[in-house]
């Protein structure tokens, strides 16, 4: 019966919704069917649980189990839907409840043990205040008294959600709901009424720029490929998301995979490609699973495959799993990796639009770039361009993490200030500590400090202050973060990930890392290395310039940025490490000196047994002593001492 229902819905969606792309029908019967598929008009309760990677990490699987048990035990006829992530990672697991006749309402921190409490209340038409996030704004159903709308929540109010529109709201692996919400209409319209070059024009006019970091105008890139003559062209989606601290591409794929597929289908048509690849990191198993299932559904609906909707357009799509190499996010390396080779970049030109995958003209774009496309075609280039700044149009999704109150995903109009994002949307710094900096752009980016918090976020203004958009990871740091340590972290990352092809990148970043290690490592007794340390720090800028100027690919060209940025903005911290041999934030372990207070020490010998390097001497019942030269600053003794006799100075 179910399959019969599904196939009649399928016919309805294909014949009356998709094929009828120009006609915005007012037929009440049709509108009602659509609102049923959108889960706006429901006949039995629906319970939604945010089950993206982040939700599952917070315990959503257990929440789901409790929900299913609850409805079974109480014999309630209700549907349970697993959605993607709505963006508020900090308060997951998130559960929404919708009962017939009422607005859908969203609850936070619903761990398995809280499910009964929340559901009991809602089924008695009460909204437990402790958990409520907000209610949806629906037109035909009853409002819950005294409950704010979700869109008025301070986290959501300043956002403008195009790319994340459906994330956390719809069932990601139900194509019916995506179509009922306007999905695939742009694609069917595009292949029926627009020529490929029309599409390139519209995208160019919208001002959409690549969201993968470079910010290259997407329409222009498509035009280059469109103009190439070739028996085969390829379209590639870069879902490698290598910046550690960025997770927006994962969230889009897990929460709304059809949006990506539709954007890619339109892109492929615009450049004349019939084959497409999605290169996605293997570390995202859930995203891969949802993509696979979404592609399968799209195939069943005739939206992927041959002769789509009788237009003669072919479009096939394949998933390629990455194998864990940051450099494979670089476009030429990525293509080598798809070809089964070592993922090493090559010089450009020729650009991929001329000679790309398997030597054929290819366009490569980021997930978020593609996710904007259907919305632009649906609403027009001017509509899209009306949001944002002069040179950066539309919105950008940012992944907020680090020492921030509300971690998660936000989508804001370009031109929003960094301060608004961190303090208004995300609630400021964790535990009311003092803000120090926000790192933006990952291993290629830089830091923004208090002084520049009011800059408007767009591609150019970020570069002006020594940072860059990158993929949109914002890692917030507070007074307890050591900036030298952060620089060292990024250099260590780059060192491991450099493909080794060019000497400045391979060896130069190694030298940079050594310099940072020398100033954070334990002072030697004779202080013989002091001179090397000074020399090293003096060379940071020169060495960085050489690496930037002489590296082949973006990885090397931007590798010194985190060091340069912190060195410029936090010179005092570098100096404290260098001259005073101290870490002001108390992070660099090797610079900590542990001492035993002879008055407090009872001589219990616990610390001796804990010390991994035998740096503590002393006999039972008499005060102990730490041999500074031997101590590696691990802190084991400090944690072990029950008499507070060990102090850090």
């Amino acid at each position, binding site marked *: 019966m179910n399959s019969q229902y599904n196939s009649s819905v399928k016919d309805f969606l294909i014949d009356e919704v998709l094929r009828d792309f120009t006609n915005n029908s007012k037929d009440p019967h049709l509108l009602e069917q659509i609102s049923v598929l959108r889960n706006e008009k429901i006949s039995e309760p629906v319970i939604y649980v945010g089950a993206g990677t982040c939700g599952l990490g917070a315990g959503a699987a257990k929440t789901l189990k409790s929900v299913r048990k609850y409805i079974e035990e109480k014999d309630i006829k209700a549907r349970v839907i697993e959605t993607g992530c709505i963006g508020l990672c900090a308060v997951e697991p998130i559960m929404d409840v919708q009962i017939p006749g009422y607005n859908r309402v969203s609850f936070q921190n619903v761990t398995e043990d809280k499910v009964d409490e929340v559901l009991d209340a809602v089924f008695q038409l009460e909204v437990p205040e402790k958990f409520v996030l907000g209610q949806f704004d629906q037109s035909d159903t009853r409002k819950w008294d005294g409950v704010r709308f979700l869109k008025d929540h301070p986290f959501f109010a300043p956002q403008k959600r195009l790319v994340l529109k459906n994330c956390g709201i719809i069932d990601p692996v139900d194509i019916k709901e995506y179509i009922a919400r306007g999905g695939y209409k742009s694609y069917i319209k595009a292949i029926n009424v627009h020529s490929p070059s029309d599409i390139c024009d519209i995208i160019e006019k919208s001002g959409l720029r690549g969201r993968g970091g470079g910010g290259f105008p997407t329409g222009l890139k498509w035009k280059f490929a469109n103009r190439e003559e070739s028996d085969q062209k390829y379209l590639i989606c870069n879902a490698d998301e290598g*910046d550690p601290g960025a997770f927006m591409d994962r969230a889009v794929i897990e929460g709304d995979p059809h949006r990506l597929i539709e954007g890619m289908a339109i892109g492929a048509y615009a450049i004349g490609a019939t084959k497409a690849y999605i290169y996605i990191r293997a570390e995202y198993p859930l995203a891969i699973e949802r993509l696979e299932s979404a592609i399968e559904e799209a195939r069943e609906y005739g939206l992927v495959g041959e002769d789509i909707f009788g237009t003669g357009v072919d479009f096939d799509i394949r998933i390629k799993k990455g194998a*864990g190499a940051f450099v494979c996010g670089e476009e030429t390396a990525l293509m080598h990796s798809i070809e089964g080779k070592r993922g090493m970049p090559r010089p450009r030109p020729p650009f991929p639009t001329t000679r790309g995958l398997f030597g054929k003209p290819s366009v490569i774009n980021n997930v978020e770039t593609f996710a904007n496309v259907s919305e632009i075609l649906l609403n027009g280039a001017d509509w899209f361009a009306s949001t944002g700044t002069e040179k950066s149009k539309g919105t950008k999704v940012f992944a907020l993490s680090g020492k921030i109150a509300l971690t998660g995903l936000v989508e804001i109009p370009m031109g929003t200030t960094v301060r608004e994002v961190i303090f208004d949307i995300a609630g400021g710094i964790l535990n009311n500590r003092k803000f120090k900096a926000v790192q933006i752009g990952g291993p290629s980016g830089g830091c923004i400090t208090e002084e520049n918090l009011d800059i408007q976020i767009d591609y150019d203004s970020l570069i002006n202050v020594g940072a860059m958009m990158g993929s949109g990871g914002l890692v917030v740091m507070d007074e307890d973060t050591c900036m030298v340590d952060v620089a060292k972290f990024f250099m260590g990352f780059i060192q491991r990930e450099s493909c080794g092809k060019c000497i400045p990148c391979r060896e130069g970043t190694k030298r940079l890392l050594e310099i940072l290690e020398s100033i954070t490592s334990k002072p030697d007794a004779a202080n013989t290395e002091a001179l090397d340390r000074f020399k090293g720090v003096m060379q940071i800028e020169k060495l960085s310039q050489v690496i930037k100027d002489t590296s082949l690919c973006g990885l090397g060209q931007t590798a010194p940025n985190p060091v340069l940025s912190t060195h410029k903005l936090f010179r005092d911290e570098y100096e404290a490490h260098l001259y005073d041999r101290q870490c002001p934030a108390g992070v660099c372990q090797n610079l900590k000196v542990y001492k035993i207070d002879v008055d407090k020490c009872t001589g219990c010998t616990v610390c001796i047994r804990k010390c991994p390097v035998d740096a503590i001497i002393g006999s039972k019942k008499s005060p102990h002593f730490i041999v500074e030269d031997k101590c590696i600053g691990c802190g084991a003794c400090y944690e072990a001492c029950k008499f507070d006799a060990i102090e850090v100075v």
Partner: protein
Amino acid sequence: MEKNRESGVVMETKVREILDRYPEGRTENLIPVLQDIQETDGYLSEESVLEVSRHLKMPASKIYGVATFYNQFRFAPLGKYHVQICCGTACHVLGASTVLEEIEKNIGVKSGETTKDGLFSMEVVACIGACGLAPVISINGNFHAKVTGESIKEILDNYRNQE
């Protein structure tokens, strides 16, 4: 010795099955083939690499060249519980290095190694995409969020106690 040979035979049939899914034997299939083998075996054994070499008509040295380039591939068997600890930016800032130290101390091996009893293996990874819940670790694909040097002991003990 005897036992080894036997497990070699079993492995080969599995590798064959995987290779049969890629009948064309094109270079393009190398990475997916290696990924599939690793998914079933947990690592790339010498025998399976040789088998792939014959199938794709590609020297084994070249296959190792590709496999070693990527962080994903392992050449030693995994433990029963595979602990992945994220050392991405967000996790680092929130104290992943303390967690890492604690794990190393607790199970007694470093990244890329497996304990002698085969119970645990450990691997440092760069971001598993749950930065909002940092620091994050994943054990056999199950995420544990906001771990600390303290909580990790309990988590590992829970797995130990399942034995």
